[in-house]
C-alpha cells in the first residue's frame, strides 16, 4: 500500500524503541475483562440486545505487531435513505480503555464499510457493533492472538 510508505515520525520511532521494554512489564488484567467488554457494548446499545449477523469483522487471527492491526468492519445493508447503518463501534477486552473507535455514516456514505488500524495490548476478544437506522444493533466478535503487544498498557510496574 503506497500510503504507508511515509517517513516514520520521531514519536513513532521512540514508541518502537521503548516497546520491547514495556511489553515485558505488561500485566494481563484479571477475568473481569469479559464483563467490561459486555458493559461497553451495552453502553453503546443503551442496554438493547445485540443480534448476531449482518456485521463482518475482518481482523487477522494472528497479529504479529499489536501497534498497527488492520481491521475492517463491513455491514450488510443496502444503505438507502430508510435502511442504512447509522453507526459502527469497535470495542476491545484488554486494552486500558474499552473503546477503540466509533464511526458515524452520513448521508453521503457509500458502502457500509470502514477500515482503520488499531492497537492491541494483548491477545483478546474484539467486538464490532453496528447500529442500524431502525434502532436495532448487530454485533460480531473475533478472537485475536497478538505476538508483539502494543505498549499501551499503563499498569504501574
Amino acid at each position: 500500500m503506497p500510503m504507508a510508505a511515509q517517513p516514520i515520525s520521531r514519536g513513532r520511532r521512540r514508541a518502537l524503541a521503548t516497546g520491547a521494554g514495556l511489553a515485558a512489564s505488561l500485566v494481563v488484567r484479571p477475568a473481569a475483562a469479559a464483563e467490561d467488554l459486555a458493559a461497553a457494548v451495552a453502553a453503546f446499545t443503551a442496554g438493547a440486545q445485540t443480534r448476531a449477523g449482518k456485521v463482518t469483522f475482518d481482523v487477522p487471527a494472528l497479529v504479529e505487531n499489536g501497534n498497527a492491526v488492520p481491521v475492517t468492519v463491513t455491514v450488510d445493508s443496502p444503505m438507502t435513505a430508510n435502511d442504512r447503518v447509522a453507526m459502527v463501534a469497535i470495542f476491545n477486552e484488554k486494552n486500558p480503555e474499552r473503546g477503540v473507535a466509533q464511526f458515524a455514516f452520513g448521508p453521503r456514505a457509500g458502502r457500509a464499510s470502514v477500515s482503520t488500524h488499531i492497537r492491541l495490548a494483548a491477545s483478546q476478544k474484539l467486538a464490532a457493533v453496528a447500529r442500524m437506522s431502525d434502532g436495532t444493533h448487530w454485533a460480531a466478535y473475533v478472537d485475536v492472538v497478538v505476538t508483539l503487544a502494543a505498549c499501551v498498557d499503563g499498569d504501574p510496574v
Partner: protein
Amino acid sequence: MARALIKVPPSARRGEVIEIRALIAHPMETGYRLDATGRPLPRDILRRFSCRYNGELVVGAELHPAVAANPYFAFSAIATESGTLTFTWEGDNGFAQTETVLLAVT
C-alpha cells in the same frame, strides 16, 4: 501542519461509489506509556475525524488511544455531483487540521 495523505479518484461517474483513504501523521500518544524515567507520557491523540462532501457528512469518527499512530481510515462515498471533499482532524493540545480535495463527477 501534520502531513496528510488522501486518496480519492480524480473523477467519477454520477452514482458511482468511490473509495476514499485518508492518513495523517500523528503519534497518537496514548497517555498510558511511561518515559525512560518512569513518568507517564501525557496523552496526545486525535479525538475526531470527519469527511464531508459539499458539506454533507460521509463518515465521522470518534477516536480512542487504541487507534494506531498515524491514523488511517478507508471508507466510501457516493459520487452525486462535482464538489469538494473536506477532511478534518481534531485532537488534544488544540490539534486541528483541514484538507480539501476536489472531485469531478461526470
